C-alpha cells in the first residue's frame, strides 16, 4: 500500500475507474495536455487519449451542460470546474438540469454526472480561488454533494461517486491536496455516499466537520476526548450518525469554512434542534467564517476558522 497525497489518490481513482469503465470521459479546462492546474488529471490524456480526456473552451456552463447531454446519452462524464468560484456560472445547468433531469423525464433520462472542483481556502491563491459554496448545492434536491477529508476518503468516495446513478458534486479541499499523505490501497474500494465517519469517540461533546476543517478540528480536540464526526457526504447527509452522537453527548459544535449565515452548519443545527433537542445540555455552536466577502490572501487566516476558535467553542459548550 502506497503513501499518497490527495492529488495522487484522486488521480489513481480516476485512472483505475477509467480502465474499468469505458464510459468515463473527463472534460474541463486544462485537464488534458496540462493535467489540470493541480495535476489531478496528470497523465490521463496520454493514457486515454484526447477523445476521452478533453480540454474544453473556457465555458463553465457548457462544460456542465455538455456533460449533462453526455450523461443522458449513456456516458459517465467527469467535468472539472477549475475552481469552485467558477462553478457559479454553471449553477443554472446544475440546478435547472442536472438535478432535475431524472425527475422531469420521470426516469427516462438520468444524469450520472460527476462534477469535480477544488474548493476552500488556505492556499493564498487569488480572488475566487478559495470559495466554499457547498451550502448552495445542498439545497438542490437531486444533487449529491461529497467532500473528502484526506487521500483515503478521497479515493473511496470518488470511486463510489463514479458509480452513482445520479449527479455528484465532488468538492476537493485544495488546502489538503498536498498537506496529508496516507496509506491508500492500490485496489478497488468504495466509501458509500451518504455515510458519515466517526473519527473519534467521546462522551461529552460532538464536533461535526468536513473537508479541510476536519484537520483543524483534530488539532483542536487533541486528547480532549471529543466525539468527532466527518460528514464526508453533505447531501444526502447522514443525520442519523449525527443525532445518535448528540443524543449521547448532549453537546454539539459544528465547524465549517463557509460564511455562517445559510451555511450547511445551519441545516445540521436545525436538524438537531428538531430531532434531538431534549438531549441537549448546551447551545449548538457553529464555528465558521464571518458573513463577509472572502478577503484576499493577506487576511485569509483571519477569515478561516482557527484551532483556537474551535477550542473556544468546545470550552463554551462544556461550561453547561
Amino acid at each position, binding site marked *: 500500500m502506497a503513501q499518497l497525497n490527495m492529488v495522487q489518490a484522486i488521480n489513481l481513482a480516476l485512472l483505475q475507474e477509467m480502465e474499468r469503465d469505458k464510459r468515463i*470521459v473527463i472534460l474541463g479546462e486544462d485537464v488534458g495536455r496540462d493535467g489540470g492546474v493541480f495535476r489531478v488529471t496528470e497523465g490521463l490524456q496520454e493514457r486515454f487519449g484526447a*477523445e*476521452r480526456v*478533453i480540454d*474544453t*473552451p473556457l*465555458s463553465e*456552463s*457548457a462544460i*456542465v*451542460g*455538455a*456533460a*449533462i*447531454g*453526455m*450523461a*443522458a*446519452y*449513456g*456516458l459517465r*462524464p467527469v467535468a472539472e470546474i477549475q475552481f469552485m468560484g467558477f462553478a457559479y456560472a454553471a449553477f*443554472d*445547468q446544475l440546478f*435547472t*438540469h442536472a438535478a432535475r*433531469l*431524472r*425527475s*422531469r*423525464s*420521470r*426516469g*427516462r*433520462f*438520468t444524469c450520472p454526472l460527476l462534477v469535480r472542483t477544488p474548493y476552500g481556502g488556505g492556499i493564498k491563491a487569488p480572488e475566487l480561488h478559495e470559495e466554499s459554496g457547498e451550502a448552495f448545492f445542498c439545497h438542490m*434536491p*437531486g444533487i*449529491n454533494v461529497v467532500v473528502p477529508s484526506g487521500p483515503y476518503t478521497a479515493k473511496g468516495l470518488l470511486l463510489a461517486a463514479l458509480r452513482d*446513478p*445520479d449527479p455528484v458534486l465532488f468538492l476537493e479541499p485544495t488546502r489538503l491536496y498536498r498537506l496529508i499523505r496516507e496509506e491508500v490501497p492500490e485496489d478497488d474500494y468504495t466509501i458509500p455516499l*451518504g455515510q458519515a465517519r466517526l473519527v473519534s469517540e467521546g462522551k461529552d461533546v460532538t464536533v461535526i466537520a468536513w473537508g479541510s476543517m476536519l484537520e483543524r478540528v483534530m488539532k483542536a480536540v487533541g486528547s480532549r476526548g471529543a466525539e468527532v464526526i466527518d460528514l464526508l457526504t453533505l447531501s*444526502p*447527509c447522514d*443525520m*442519523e450518525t449525527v443525532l445518535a452522537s448528540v443524543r449521547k453527548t448532549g453537546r454539539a459544535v459544528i465547524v465549517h469554512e463557509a460564511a455562517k449565515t445559510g451555511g450547511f452548519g445551519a441545516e445540521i443545527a436545525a436538524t438537531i434542534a428538531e430531532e434531538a433537542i431534549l438531549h441537549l445540555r448546551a447551545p449548538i455552536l457553529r464555528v465558521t467564517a464571518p458573513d463577509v466577502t472572502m478577503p484576499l490572501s493577506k487576511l485569509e487566516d483571519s477569515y478561516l476558522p482557527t484551532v483556537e476558535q474551535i477550542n473556544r467553542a468546545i470550552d463554551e459548550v462544556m461550561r453547561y
Partner: protein
Amino acid sequence: MPEELLASFAVKRLSVLDEQGNIDEALMPTLSEAEIRRIYEAMVLARTFDERAMALQREGRLGTYPPILGQEAAQVGSALALTPADWVFPSFRETGVQLALGYPIHQLFQYWAGDERGQRTPEKLNIFPICVSVGTHIPHAVGAAMAARYQGDPVVAVAWFGDGATSKGDFHEGFNMAGVFRLPVVFICQNNQWAISVPLKAQSAAASLAQKAIAYGFDGIQVDGNDVFAVYRATIEALNKARSGGGPTFIECLTYRIGDHTTADDAGRYRSQDEVAAWRARDPILRLERYMAKKKFWNEEYGKEAKTRMTAVIDEAVQAMEALPPPLASEMFEHTGATLSPRLVGQLKEL
C-alpha cells in the same frame, strides 16, 4: 502590410416553394407524392393539436399553452428529415416536432395539463424533455453529439429553439464548443420574430440570425421557414454533413408566431394586427396545398378528409389523456434520485 482583408463571409437564404405554390425544380428535394402527403398530414395534425390545445385551455382543461400556429412548416419540415436514431432537444414550442416524430399525443396533452408523466418519452424515441428555460438545452445537444461520436454512433443531435434563445449565454457556449469539436449537431432556430413582446430587431442587431454561425467557424443558413421544402432540404443537408464528419450547421427558419406568446399573453398589447394579417396570408399549409393542387394530389375533398382523420386522432388522444388517473402525491418523490435518502423516506411518510 496595410489594412488587408483577413476573411470574408456570405450568408445565404434558401427558399424552394413560393406563396403561389410554385417550386424551384433545381432545389426541390426528392420527395415522393406519398412522402409529401405525409408531410402535409403531419402539418395538419400539428395544427389540429394546436387548435384543440387552445380550446382545452380556454375550458380550463389544460394549463398555459404556447401555440405553434404558423410554424408548422419550420417544425414538421425539419423533424421529418431526421432518422429515428437522432437525438432531439426541443424547447417548449416544438409541438410540431414532437408530433412529427411520433411522440404520444395524449402525453403532450398530459404535459400541458401540468402532469410531468407526460414527459416520459417512450423508450424507442430519443426526445429530451421540453426545455422551459430558454436556450439552456443547447449544451445538452452538444454533449449528446460528443457522446455519439465517442461511441461511434451515426447519430446527430438536433436542438430547436427560438430567436430569443440566441441571446442566451448557453447558446454561445454550446455553439462555440460544437464548432471547436466539429460535432455532429444541427441547431434549428425557429425565428418567429418575437420573444413574447420583444421583436427580433430588439433581440439582435444582426442582419440575420444565421450569420451568428460565423462566430463559431461553421455554416449558418437562413431558410424561408414557411416553405416546408426549403426547411426539409436544409435540414437533410445539415444532417448528412454532420453524419459524414462535416460538423455543425445552424439553420435559421424565418417564420412568424401568428398566435399570442402563450394563452397567458395578449399580443395585441405590443404588435399590430396588420403585421399578423400579412403573415397569416403566408400560411405554410396553404402554400403546400397550392403546390399539391397544382401537382393534382390535393383538392378540397382530400383536404377535408385529412382534417377529419387528424381530428379523430386528436379526439382519441384527448380522451386518452383525460382517462388517465391523476398523479399521486407520492409520485413527487419517485424520481428525484435513483433511491430515497432516509430523510426523503421520512418526508414521504409525513405526506
